[in-house]
């Protein structure tokens, strides 16, 4: 009988084996049909998904017991670095979600890749290695492992963003994505090493433990007690900034839409709550640390709410379905982060999962539309697809209703956050979240009416969609409808699953208001884009700002390109002229002196000018010698 620990190790290494197999097939140029590669990847992801469910079941059954195992892989100097497993509820739920998303991506990808006829094996290699890395990240037992795998995940994100490297846009965008990610990674690395040193490396420490999550609480307490508060706050803020960048929060939100050149199934993964929650997961793991410096939660609140609001406003102006999806995902992550800022630990995870299912459903339906209409991604050139793709329209509608917070999972998660904010008297944040809900509802239904209602404006006839793709949206629809309901009705289960504790009852007044505000968004979209009784609202400043992505792109371009190039030009000027002059000075002086000497030797020194210079030099020398000799300056 294989124990659960062995199963978890098997779960981690199955994608790696699959990746190795596909790589070997590609390198050896074996004639294996593409279907075989797809099946092997699918079987691998299905097996991993099954094991992840077993793990989830295990963590729920043995509540409070954490599966833990550490294996030392290397010692850098005298610091042992471990590859380990730390499977508690949090990692189990994220692992299961991850495996589900990868299974869906695998099922969805085959037809898409066959249609695109490019990089079939490469896609599955990347996909499996990404799954392996994400599993290692979510189950990691220590902070260093977490950060190390986060750095490699950044690489995979770059590779996916640059998958179609023949496209110039893909090259430019992927480079930006990589730069943003690397910047965040180095911040996290420095913060981790600082924490490692300041929390463990003391003169009286005999053996140095690595930053295991099992004792992060005690390490935090120890460093909080022994460290200068400034240093401790610096470490916490660095972790938060790194995590915020990884989760594409303001002002680094464009990171997500820059990945839109990735293949559609991979893009759906990138905007799923898996990739976007990397930073949030790290914050959840380090939660005991932040609890010691409550001021840092303010950063989370502010960054989260700004991202949520701006993301929603940008999505209002976008016409590209991938861009809308990415801004929607960013906006939803912002709300989850804001909830975490209010120390709603369980609620934040609950919101992330509920919104995540809705977002994934919407993104997959849009991928199906893109597939069906021959990569048409502009909503202005779509329309009337409800009659041609009724199931897709239905699934999209379910997703839109949930994410807007009308009913289903999205309603419950949003209701809890709003009720908590109302009972705590945080009306500013409450109003801002309601505003976000309004905008979300508006752009989602705008998209619905533009894509599915009216007349079809595309150039090619939409083609038939495979059953495998329908299966994906069926699963996600069921989860979007039921997940929130199950969790809210079975309190014990939800507590066991995500640590959610029902602290405030759902406030009917706030929820009715929230419903009405979302309904307003729907009504407005209905009247503008369906009945066309109203014309589009044009608030010029907001439109301009939204179309410029609130200058977030410009900010990123400025700090990662323009500013560096500007400084580089200044340095180049210095190199070319000033340093060159300094270098040529000795040789010029030597030549000049040599010229003078020759002239002097030849007794051709007729010029009064040279004689004057010589006299002045001589006088200066004598004066300085006398000056030092008299002892005024010693």
């Amino acid at each position, binding site marked *: 009988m294989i124990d659960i620990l062995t199963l978890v190790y098997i779960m981690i290494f199955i994608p790696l084996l699959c990746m190795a197999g596909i790589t070997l097939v590609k390198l050896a140029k074996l004639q294996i049909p593409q279907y075989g590669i797809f099946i092997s990847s699918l079987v691998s992801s299905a097996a991993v998904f099954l094991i992840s469910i077993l793990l989830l079941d295990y963590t729920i059954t043995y509540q409070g017991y954490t599966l833990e195992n550490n294996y030392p892989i290397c010692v*850098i100097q005298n610091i042992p670095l471990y590859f380990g497993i730390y499977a508690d509820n949090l990692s189990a739920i994220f692992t299961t979600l991850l495996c589900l998303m990868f299974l869906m991506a695998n099922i969805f990808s085959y037809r898409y890749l066959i249609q695109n006829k490019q990089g079939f094996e490469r896609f599955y290699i990347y996909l499996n290695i990404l799954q392996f890395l994400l599993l290692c990240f979510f189950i990691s037992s220590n902070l260093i492992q977490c950060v190390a795998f986060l750095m490699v995940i950044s690489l995979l994100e770059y590779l996916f963003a640059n998958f179609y490297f023949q496209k110039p846009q893909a090259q430019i965008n992927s480079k930006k994505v*990589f730069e943003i990610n690397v910047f965040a990674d180095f911040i996290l690395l420095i913060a981790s090493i600082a924490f490692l040193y300041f929390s463990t490396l003391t003169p009286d420490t005999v053996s140095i433990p690595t930053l295991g999550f099992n004792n992060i609480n005690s390490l935090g307490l120890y460093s909080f007690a022994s460290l200068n508060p400034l240093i401790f706050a610096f470490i916490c803020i660095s972790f938060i900034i790194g995590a915020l960048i990884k989760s594409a929060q303001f002002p680094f939100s464009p990171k997500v839409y820059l990945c839109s050149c990735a293949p559609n199934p991979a893009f759906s993964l990138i905007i799923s709550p898996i990739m976007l929650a990397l930073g949030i997961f790290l914050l959840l793991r380090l939660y005991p640390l932040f609890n010691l410096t409550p001021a840092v939660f303010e950063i989370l609140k502010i960054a989260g709410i700004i991202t949520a609001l701006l993301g929603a406003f940008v999505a209002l102006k976008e016409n590209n379905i991938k861009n809308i999806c990415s801004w929607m995902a960013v906006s939803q992550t912002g709300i989850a982060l804001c909830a975490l800022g209010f120390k709603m630990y369980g609620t934040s995870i609950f919101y992330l999962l509920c919104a995540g299912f809705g977002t994934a459903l919407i993104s997959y339906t849009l991928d199906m539309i893109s597939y069906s209409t021959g990569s048409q991604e502009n909503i202005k050139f779509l329309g009337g697809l409800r009659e041609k793709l009724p199931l897709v329209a239905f699934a999209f509608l379910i997703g839109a209703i949930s994410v807007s917070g009308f009913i289903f999972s999205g309603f419950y998660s949003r209701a809890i956050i709003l009720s908590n904010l109302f009972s705590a008297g945080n009306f500013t944040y409450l109003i801002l979240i309601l505003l976000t809900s309004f905008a979300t509802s508006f752009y989602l239904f705008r998209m619905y009416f533009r894509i599915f209602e009216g007349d079809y404006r595309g150039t090619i006839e939409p083609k038939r969609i495979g059953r495998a793709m329908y299966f994906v949206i069926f699963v996600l629809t069921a989860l979007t409808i039921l997940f929130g309901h199950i969790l809210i009705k079975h309190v014990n289960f939800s507590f066991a699953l995500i640590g959610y504790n029902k602290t405030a009852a759902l406030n009917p007044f706030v929820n009715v208001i929230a419903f009405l505000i979302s309904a307003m968004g729907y009504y407005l979209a209905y009247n503008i884009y369906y009945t066309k009784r109203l014309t589009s609202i044009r608030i010029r400043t907001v439109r301009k700002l939204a179309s410029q992505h609130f200058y977030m792109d410009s900010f990123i371009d400025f700090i990662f390109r323009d500013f560096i190039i500007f400084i580089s030009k200044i340095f180049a000027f210095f190199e070319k002229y000033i340093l060159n002059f300094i270098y040529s000075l000795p040789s010029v002086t030597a030549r000049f002196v040599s010229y003078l000497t020759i002239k002097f030797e030849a007794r051709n020194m007729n010029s009064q000018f040279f004689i004057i210079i010589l006299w002045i030099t001589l006088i200066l020398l004598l004066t300085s010698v006398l000056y030092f000799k008299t002892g005024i300056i010693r």
Partner: protein
Amino acid sequence: MENFISTIIFTLLPLFAGLIIFSGFFKNNTVVIRRFAKYFSALYFIFAAYEFFNRNTNSEFGNVFSSSFYILSSSTGGLSIGFDTIGSIFALLISFLILICFVMAKSAVSSKQRLFYSFVLFFESAILAVLSSQDFCIFCAAIIFAALCAYILVFNFSPIRARKETKEYLVLNSFAVFILCGAFALVYAILKYNSLEANLLNFTYSSSDLSGTIQLILFFAFLLISAVKIPFFGFHRPLLGIITNSNAALSCIFLSEFILGFFILIKFNMYILKDIFQIFSPSLAMLSIFNLCYFATLAIGEKDLKKSFGYFCFSQSSIALCALCSISIEGICGAIFQCISQSLILLGLFGCYCFASQIFKTTKLPFMGALAPVAPKLAAFSFILTLAGIGLPFTSGFSAKFLCILGGFSTQVYSQNIIWVCNLFILLGFALGAFYLISTFQKIFFGADECKDCKVTDLLRHRTLALAVLTFCIITLGVAPYILTGSITKYADMIVSSFLM
């Protein structure tokens, strides 16, 4: 005595091999010369590895280089010679770099092979003599000889337009070397005055008895030669010119120069003149951060591939310098590890960039692009090396950067706040380096197709072999850094304990 003879043989073998080639024994038969040099270097490297492993008293793999291989034979008077830990590691590294350069030289050096191979071997011998020397005369003679060999090589095997920079480098190098000789003369006089035998060991023991002014003079004399070889800001122009005009085969020259500069900095400035180093460590740390950011920024804006690579090399050197200034075990360990890792990565990257510029027949980045589909092997190796340069986990770059940052935090110097702040600014340097590497990779291998009229060939067998070996070493050091850190730690511990005394 046995150790002494081994060291003499080890140091002088390349010189003899070089003399055989130079004397015309092979009658200008280029194939034979090339093969002789290549196989000699390979055997020599194996011999060196075996010797260092064999000399080790501790048979653990983590302690391959122990300080037991430290000789000072009194029977030979002043002419003492022997490797210590860092010397032996650097000697092995240099013999490896030269072996890889010989492998790459097959298509990079098309004429004057006899001169090239013999002088590279002379250069190797001179560098090894510097690393092993425990005597002032040998040290000065070897360092002058190394500078001359480097000058002759670069002068003969780089374009005519590079001769100005070559001369500048020789002048600057000679200036620094003569000041070093002067410093040694001063030490010699002082030791003789105190009735001590004039060698490095006595200098080490009695350095703290010297007056502050003399220590300061010596410190700046040693720092000057390190500043020329590593190089520091302001002293970098001639070396940059050499890198810009070098080919893959000559990369061993500037990498060896960097290693030599670093060796002098650790051994003389840090270990022997520890009191002064402690005072200047915050200033040096700030200088290194400035170097790091300055050169990395310049590298990003530069349009010439080799020139930008030169700037990048200098910025990477500064990471090691910054870690060294922390004067902690982790920092010194990280600095030495960074030095080794960087040499391997830069050698590989320079090789890749040289091959790419050979294909495009230009070194201008705007005229390069879309090489990945036509040269996939070159693209794959470049990508791995780029990632190692960035510091991705499981490569030697990550371990080195990890140790450097950790060392920066664990500093115990009196002004540790400055070192901590510098350590935070290292982040900026890392990020800038990463931006440079990824943008260069993209420009060469993706980008617009500039490859229409050029003769495209992927990596030939010998180049593939060289890059594969380098990649293997980089990944091995990334996965199992304890191969080196075990022994380096002992050396670092020795240095740090001397500071605590």
